């Protein structure tokens, strides 16, 4: 009996492998069929007369088919492996030590980032790191945190978030170029204008159900962009507006001339001073976003947001004014989007509708989704990984060499693959870990002891 059981389990295993191979072959064949038109053939315009010609790419197809086969086999093997007892999602005491270390360590690192770089790499070597890594990532961290209020806390999917970013950027640009106001006066005005737009747009749409709301916000985002493109007298059209006034430090500009910041403090002019200042400005703005969110979460309004996300009908029956609650989340998210937009304009010195496409909204949404909707630290980490990671990939020259050798792609640029991987990551995330990488929640109120709650215990948005 025991032998029979053993042999049958053995038979199970071998037939398991055969099944897995069969399944993987199917996956490979499916990939082949999917690839046949779109990857195998490549339509390229002829240099001379512009007509399209077909080129072949059999190697790329072969690589993709093998990848699909291997990937499917790995997934099946992983699934077939004897399952360990899955950690049951229970409320356990929050590991406050690690969280505190991460928070304060990260904060310290962010504060010391520019001086360390300037000392180690010199002022010209660190320019790139501070500008295209530090500032760029922090803008997305701030946008992610702003959108997190709307999507992560209140559970409203906003696909037009970039519209508020645009409102902020154009507010500063137009106020500064027409009325010659300083950045520091325009910044709060831009935020408030964006929040007003949030209210105006939010008021009619917030009684819609989740996915309709998403589509309408998308429509509003596109309407604002189309208006910016076509109303040339107002916004400069698709050419955009350039020569936006630079940021000032208590009235001192960052330039190589008498009366500038460098001159005032008796330093030799260096472009790094302005960049470091911009870095600290966006760091302060991002931290402000985070601080406001963290504090608001403990107030009744913040708890109402999260309650609304979990169950709207229960909220309504308990007497929560859902319209006002949604509207505050929407307006606050828009406010921070406006601040970030205004910073974007002063940093770039140039705005055009090109910067505010739906792709930008999708990128910010990807950051929030991958970070774990509602988790502040997760969103920050996702922004670092997605934005910084791809800037890093661009530096890898050997990757370029490999791609040129194997696939014959001479002009390989990893940033081309950014959208591709963002999209794929969003899908994989929804399938595998719909609560994001950082899926534990620290409850904002507790009885005796703060316990972290696994994301599995809370269901989001049912109702």
């Amino acid at each position, binding site marked *: 009996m025991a032998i029979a059981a053993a042999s049958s389990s053995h038979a199970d295993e071998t037939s398991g492998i055969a099944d897995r191979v069969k399944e993987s072959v199917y996956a490979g064949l499916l990939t082949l069929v999917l690839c046949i038109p779109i990857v195998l053939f490549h339509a390229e*315009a002829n240099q001379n007369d512009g007509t399209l010609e077909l080129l072949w790419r059999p190697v790329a197809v072969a690589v993709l088919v093998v990848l699909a086969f291997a990937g499917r086999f790995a997934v099946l093997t992983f699934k077939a492996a004897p399952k360990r007892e899955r950690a049951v999602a229970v409320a356990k005491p929050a590991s406050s030590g690690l969280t505190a270390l991460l928070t304060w360590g990260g904060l310290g690192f962010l504060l010391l980032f520019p001086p360390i770089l300037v000392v180690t790499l010199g002022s010209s070597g660190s320019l790139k790191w501070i500008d295209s890594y530090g500032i760029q990532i922090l803008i997305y961290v701030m946008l992610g945190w702003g959108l997190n209020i709307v999507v992560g806390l209140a559970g409203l*999917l906003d696909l037009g978030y970039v519209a508020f970013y645009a409102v902020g950027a154009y507010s500063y640009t137009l106020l500064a170029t027409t009325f010659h106001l300083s950045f520091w006066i325009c910044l709060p005005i831009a935020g408030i204008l964006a929040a007003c737009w949030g209210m105006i747009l939010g008021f009619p749409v917030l009684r819609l159900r989740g996915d309709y709301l998403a589509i309408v916000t998308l429509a509003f985002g596109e309407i604002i962009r189309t208006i910016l493109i076509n109303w040339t007298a107002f916004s400069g059209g698709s050419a955009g507006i350039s020569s936006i006034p630079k940021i000032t430090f208590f009235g001192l500009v960052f330039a190589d001339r008498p009366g500038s910041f460098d001159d005032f403090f008796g330093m030799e002019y260096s472009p790094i001073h302005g960049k470091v200042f911009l870095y600290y400005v966006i760091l302060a703005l991002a931290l402000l976003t985070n601080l406001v969110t963290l504090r608001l979460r403990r107030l009744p309004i913040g708890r109402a947001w999260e309650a609304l996300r979990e169950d709207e009908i229960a909220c309504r029956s308990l007497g929560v004014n859902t319209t006002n609650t949604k509207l505050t989340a929407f307006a606050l998210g828009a406010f921070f989007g406006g601040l970030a937009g205004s910073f974007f304009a002063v940093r770039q010195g140039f705005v055009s509708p090109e910067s505010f496409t739906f792709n930008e909204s999708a990128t910010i949404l990807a950051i929030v*989704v991958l970070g774990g909707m509602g988790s502040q630290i997760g969103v920050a980490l996702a922004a670092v990984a997605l934005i910084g990671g791809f800037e890093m990939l661009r530096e890898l020259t050997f990757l370029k060499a490999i791609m040129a050798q194997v696939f014959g792609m001479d002009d390989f640029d990893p940033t081309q693959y950014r959208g*591709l991987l*963002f999209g794929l990551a969003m899908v994989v995330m929804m399938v595998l870990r719909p609560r994001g990488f950082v899926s534990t929640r620290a409850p904002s109120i507790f009885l005796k002891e703060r316990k972290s709650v696994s994301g599995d215990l809370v269901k*989001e948005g049912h109702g």
Partner: protein
Amino acid sequence: MENFLQQLINGITLGSIYGLIAIGYTMVFGIIGMVNFAHGDVFMLSAFIALLAFLFLTKVIGLGFLPVAFIIVLVLGMTLTSVWNWTIERLAYRPLRGSFRLAPLISAIGMSTFLSNFVQVAQGPRNKPVPPMFSQNFQFGPPGHEVTLQYKQIVIVVVTALLLGGFWWLVQKTNLGRAQRACEQDRKMAALIGVDVDRTISITFIIGAALAAVAGSLYLLYYGVVSFSDGFLPGVKAFTAAVLGGIGSLPGAVLGGLMIGLIEVMWAAYFSSDYKDVAAFSILAITLIFMPSGILGRPEIEKV
């Protein structure tokens, strides 16, 4: 008057294409209550498949007779796009049944981003022009006031009408259509009486993709050019059409498509072509806010 007639013809042609895409949105919404955000990009992908199939037939095989080539392109495009959409449903949407409410939509947005970037990487960012097909036209009306009717417009409207007829028969008269309508009314009940719900949903995605593929080929035929970003705007407009006609309603999708096509063309002709997209987006927002059940849709009942 002749201008109006001309725009009417152009609008109906464009509207047929939107209507074909809109059916994909409305069927998927009807059966699993999800806005299939990636459908516009599936349409764009199908236009690329049609382009490549057309080039393969004419350049590699050397098929010279256009109507035959066009029919083969249509069939190939429908088949391959269906395989794509079936795979997408399997990988990105099916595991999410029973997940939280926004999960399928976020997954679909991810899929949409993936598809447009995938095509951009695979086929390059530039526009792909094809040589004009069926480019003859004939004119009618009194001298000085002629209205032009292009052959390709006739092809588009005829193909759409034939396809919609076949599709109508499929949904109304076959077992498959009955299963589909049953799932649309109540998925749990349909499962209890022996309808394979998963299979029915898969087939819904396949039919949606096949119709979108025809729309893709017709789009390529009509405009003669396609680029990787062409999924977004037609996708949103077709979704607007589905919403305007009443989401979940199949005749509504066709009606909505024709209306959106006419509105867009008339708006561009009589007001401003710069703001024609604003017109579509505004209709989308206004319909959803003030008339969420559309023209032919049933009002939604919220079950607690």
